[in-house]
């Protein structure tokens, strides 16, 4: 069995608003990523997937607050560490994080090489700038980025190039886990493909051991990661391998989500897109019982009463529903039959 790179147990975090209300954006999330594996997190906007990405680093700053749970990265439990210690010893070295607008984080008045110097000097003491340049050049060449980029200012680079540069900077210290939160959503399709190719290359060449990839674009997720987790209203509702999740979802929410995929491929025009009526619950006051109950077409009275636990299914799949897998599949089959 491969090493577990990142393990999270019952992690809950919340935002505190200006008016001192709590928004419980991540609720008792448990996950595990093994060495050499990548995990995708899918969900609608506002379901807490970006918050989960932030929380996974163990580095909290207001308005985000840690509530409880354990985070173990490469065997070290970091949930008890102080923020400053996390920043010094974990961020960049163990975990790297790429937000959606990462490319806008580059200060336009500094050359790319300066950012790399910053990153390395923060963690290593006795390095010369010449060494750093050499290391950066080597890394950039390996990743297929032209080394001239190092001497350029961010404004001289295109959006896709900037994003790839930021990713290269973030793996400079060879982190174990890379958390990429919608790294390619702001880019055009071609740049997106380049970013994805680079991320895959990072995994294959061993720059990073594991990756967590977050996006709302399901076709993209399907092509990037090994396993997919679907999040809804701060909770994980289903987990499985990406192929199973896209073509054979169990949970009614995942079913709806996968049914809304649009790709420019043959046969798509005959597919009837599924829609889920209603809106996600307000995370300031999450409902008791199943959080999807309001929008679920199989809802039963007991759904709204008790907390629904994760259930296990074959191939290590997990789903959060009180209706057993077989019954759900039966219901889906009936629906399909009715729609012809």
């Amino acid at each position, binding site marked *: 069995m491969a090493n577990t790179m990142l393990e999270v147990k019952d992690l809950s975090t919340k935002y505190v608003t200006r008016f001192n209300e709590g928004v419980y954006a991540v609720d008792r999330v448990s996950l595990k990523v093994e060495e050499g594996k990548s995990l995708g997190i899918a969900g*609608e*906007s506002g379901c807490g997937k970006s918050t989960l990405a932030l929380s996974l680093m163990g580095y909290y700053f207001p308005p985000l607050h840690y509530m409880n749970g354990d985070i173990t990265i490469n065997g070290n439990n970091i949930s008890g560490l102080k923020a400053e210690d996390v920043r010094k010893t974990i961020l960049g070295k163990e975990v790297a994080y790429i937000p959606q607008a990462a490319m806008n984080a580059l200060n336009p008045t500094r050359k790319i090489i300066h950012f790399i110097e910053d990153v390395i000097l923060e963690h290593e003491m006795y390095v010369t700038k010449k060494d750093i340049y050499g290391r950066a050049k080597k890394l950039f060449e390996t990743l297929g980025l032209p080394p001239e980029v190092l001497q350029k200012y961010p404004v001289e680079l295109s959006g896709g190039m900037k994003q790839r540069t930021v990713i290269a900077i973030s793996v400079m210290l060879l982190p174990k886990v890379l958390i990429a939160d919608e790294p390619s959503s702001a880019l*055009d*399709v*071609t740049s*997106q*493909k*380049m970013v*994805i*190719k680079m991320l*895959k290359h990072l995994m294959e060449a061993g720059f990073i051991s594991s990756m967590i990839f977050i996006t*709302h*674009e*399901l*076709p*993209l997720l*399907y*092509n990037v990661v090994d396993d997919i987790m679907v999040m809804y209203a701060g909770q994980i509702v289903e987990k499985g391998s990406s192929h199973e999740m*896209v073509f054979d979802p169990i949970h009614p929410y995942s079913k*709806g*989500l996968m*049914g*809304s*995929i*649009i*790709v*420019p*491929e*043959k*046969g*798509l*025009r005959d597919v009837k*897109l*599924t*829609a*889920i*009526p209603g*809106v996600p619950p307000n995370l300031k006051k999450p409902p008791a019982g199943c959080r999807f109950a309001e929008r679920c077409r199989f809802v039963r009275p007991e759904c709204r009463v008790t907390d629904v636990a994760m259930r296990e299914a074959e191939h290590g799949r997990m789903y959060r529903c009180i209706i057993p897998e077989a019954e759900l599949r039966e219901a889906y089959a009936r629906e399909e039959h009715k729609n012809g």
Partner: protein
Amino acid sequence: MDKEKKPYLSAKGVTKSFGFGRQKTVAVDNINLDLYEGEVISIVGESGSGKTTLSKVLLGLINQTSGDVYFQGVKRDISSQARKREYWKNIQAIFQDPFSSYNIFNKIDSVLLDCINMRGGVYFPREKKTEMMIEACSFVNLKFEELTNKYPFELSGGQMQRLMIARIFLLQPKILLADEPTSMIDACSRATILDELMHLRKEVGMTIIFITHDIGLAYYVSDNVYIMEKGRFVESGAADDVILRPKEPYTQRLINDVPKIYEEWDLSTV
């Protein structure tokens, strides 16, 4: 599609450029477009391709630098406010971002009342107006009683976009220009919006122009697809032809770069 018919809306050599001299940029370059009644077309392009500028020219929100737009075979004249109003009875739009499409100081009622007034319902009795609003809301599966006296920003993105469709339902234009109507809302609500737009097309007999960057969406909804690059149409034709059997290298690249789920997504091509 009966091609013998006269085009409903057509653009002939429409060009729009900004700035002068060195800084001149041509956003829309010599575009020819024929739109027939009842058709759904998509204009697909990446950001910066000029598709939004083209949509604004077609809507008459900005004037073209050269070329002409013909509406029902007659050259469009929007030189005065009254003529513009007349033109806008026939062509309406849904914009990309529902959160910035509404005036945050106006209530939902006033948004809908505006549409009734525009269709000449200024002097309708109050009950009739309310009835029309209820009908429009129920068309998009919203409950008017829950919306009245609320502000648009109190709704979710999907609901706001549906309210936009209710607005179109009241206005009953001949042509609807939908500028990325689903790109800012969640995948689960997307199907609802698309269904309602198609429903609207069936009920009102509307012609729809989709402006989008999402090739999948264009393929899913439209009869004809126009691929736009740097202000020009590089390829156009029936959706099946253009998307499944693209001829131009640009279109091929574009379709190649979109992630697929049924076929292999070839990463080696970039």
